[in-house]
């Protein structure tokens, strides 16, 4: 507590530039006067009395330094001084500074760019609760060499009622649609999804609701959920948006909910991930194709496993289900097709096969950053040796720091300081200048 109080006072003195030099000067003058008077009383001559008083007080410079160091924070003072010096040196040689900053900028920029890709894909591939339960479902027909085939609506109903999943959703690939009748007509990306889509993802609306998972409308249910971005941009974050009619191409939909700001749809294209309208649909009635087992049109099937069920276990149950369905519908699933249903983690289908190459790329740009650091360090060193070994005599290029440095400091320490000042401190502003634009990318 005491230490903290002392530090805060010193810090505030440092920041406000409050100094105690004058006070100390007066105190010492008074001290010397009092001591001198006593010495005179003890029988000394005035000259001797003054000399003795000064001797007793000790070295004035050291006292002033200690006093100043106590008043402020010498570490910060020196740092500020050295940084100011470094900036001045960089301004003096703009060509050199430009090269150094550009070199570092390239390294830092490349690393940041790749890192932000990795952060979005590898580190946070699925921004939904319990992402481990999310799987992608596809049909395979190895007998006729077909993989990643879509499923049919009857098969979807089989999966929903199988008890293996909490929910199984179908979503369209999405498309663009014209929003008219509002203040500003706009072309937007929409996605048609089964009403349980948000239940699969585990996402809730920030305003209103998402679709009712039990909604069994065969075609479009004429409800629309909109993104936070669209709500703010097009409707000024209107709190009374619920129930509003939106004219999308030739149809009218009613807004039932607004997704939260951080919600992003899943999908392989950035267009899909930035979906702004979700339309609820059953995929079974008009305008969709009739629900027939032979029409395997629905390629994007996302499901949420029951909690605690592993993908392997679910796959086992699924294989059994496939066997019984084959017996039930031999016409739709002829044995030579070797029909199977395959589950894969949703995260894998988002990242796909780029994991390896991303890591490799990140390693590569990391090395580029390292190389640019080495290059800049070399430049700084070369410039320093070019200037000749600076000694205590060449004071013209480096002003002395304020007080705080005792004269008897060893020469090696002095050289050490030179190294910091000439080589390392310039590196900070260089790095700061280069990193700033990169960070804003």
């Amino acid at each position, binding site marked *: 507590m005491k230490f903290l109080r002392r530090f805060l006072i010193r810090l505030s003195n440092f920041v406000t530039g409050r100094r105690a030099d004058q006070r100390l000067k007066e105190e*010492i003058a*008074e*001290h010397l006067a*009092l001591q001198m008077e006593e010495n005179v009383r003890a029988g000394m001559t005035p000259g001797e009395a003054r000399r003795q008083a000064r001797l007793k007080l*000790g070295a004035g410079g050291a*006292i002033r330094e200690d006093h100043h*160091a*106590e008043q402020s924070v010498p570490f910060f003072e020196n740092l500020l001084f050295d940084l100011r010096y470094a900036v001045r040196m960089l301004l003096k040689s703009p060509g050199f500074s430009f090269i150094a900053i550009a070199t570092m900028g390239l390294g830092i920029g490349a690393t940041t760019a790749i890192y932000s890709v990795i952060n979005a894909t590898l580190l946070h591939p699925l921004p939904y609760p319990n992402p481990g339960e999310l799987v992608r479902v596809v049909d395979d027909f190895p007998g006729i060499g077909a993989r990643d085939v879509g499923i049919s609506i009857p098969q979807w109903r089989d999966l929903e009622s199988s008890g293996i999943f909490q929910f199984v959703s179908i979503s369209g690939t999405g498309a663009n649609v014209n929003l008219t009748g509002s203040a500003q007509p706009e072309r937007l990306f929409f996605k048609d999804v089964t009403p349980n889509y948000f239940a699969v993802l585990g996402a809730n609306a920030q305003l209103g609701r998402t679709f009712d998972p039990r909604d069994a409308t065969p075609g479009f249910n004429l409800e629309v959920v909109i993104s936070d971005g669209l709500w703010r941009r097009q409707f000024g974050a209107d709190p009374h948006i619920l129930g509003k009619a939106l004219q999308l191409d030739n149809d009218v939909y009613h807004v039932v909910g607004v997704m939260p700001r951080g919600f992003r749809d899943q999908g392989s294209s950035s267009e899909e991930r930035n979906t702004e309208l979700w339309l609820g649909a059953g995929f079974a009635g008009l305008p969709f194709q009739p629900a027939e087992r032979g029409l395997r049109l629905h390629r994007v099937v996302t499901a949420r496993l029951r909690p605690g069920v592993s993908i392997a276990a679910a796959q086992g149950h699924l294989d059994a289900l496939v066997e019984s369905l084959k017996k039930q519908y031999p016409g739709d699933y002829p044995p030579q097709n070797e029909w199977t249903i395959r589950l894969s983690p949703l995260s894998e289908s988002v990242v796909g096969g780029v994991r390896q190459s991303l890591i490799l790329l990140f390693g590569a740009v990391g090395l580029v950053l390292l190389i640019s650091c080495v290059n800049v360090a070399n430049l700084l060193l070369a410039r320093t040796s070019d200037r000749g070994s600076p000694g205590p005599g060449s004071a013209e290029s480096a002003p002395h720091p304020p007080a705080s440095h005792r004269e008897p400091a060893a020469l090696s320490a002095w050289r050490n300081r030179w190294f910091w000042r000439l080589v390392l401190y310039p590196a900070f502003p260089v790095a700061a200048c280069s990193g700033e634009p990169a960070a804003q990318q």
Partner: protein
Amino acid sequence: MKEKPDVLQGTLALMVLKTLDVLGPQHGWGIARRIEQISGDLLAVNQGTLYPLLLKLEHEGSIASEWGASENNRRARFYRLTAAGRKQLQAETRDWEQTAAIIARFFKVKAEDLG
């Protein structure tokens, strides 16, 4: 010739606090002189080292200072003990006496006592 012992680290602060406790508000020279008198000239204190220490104690809140008039009516900075400083002095006095008592007991014990 044997040198005068340096003031132990931290004990000078304790001496300053005790001096202010006994004498009331004092200026720097008064404190330095009092310490010198009490220690019977056995301690070699550069009087100047007192001033950074006083500033430190003030930053820590143990003492406070304001301008006043000295004996011969000149401007001088007077230091006084704060409530926090008095508490600190009591605690440190206790600690110090305890340490001294333990050390004293160690010196008193002879080999045969442990028989």
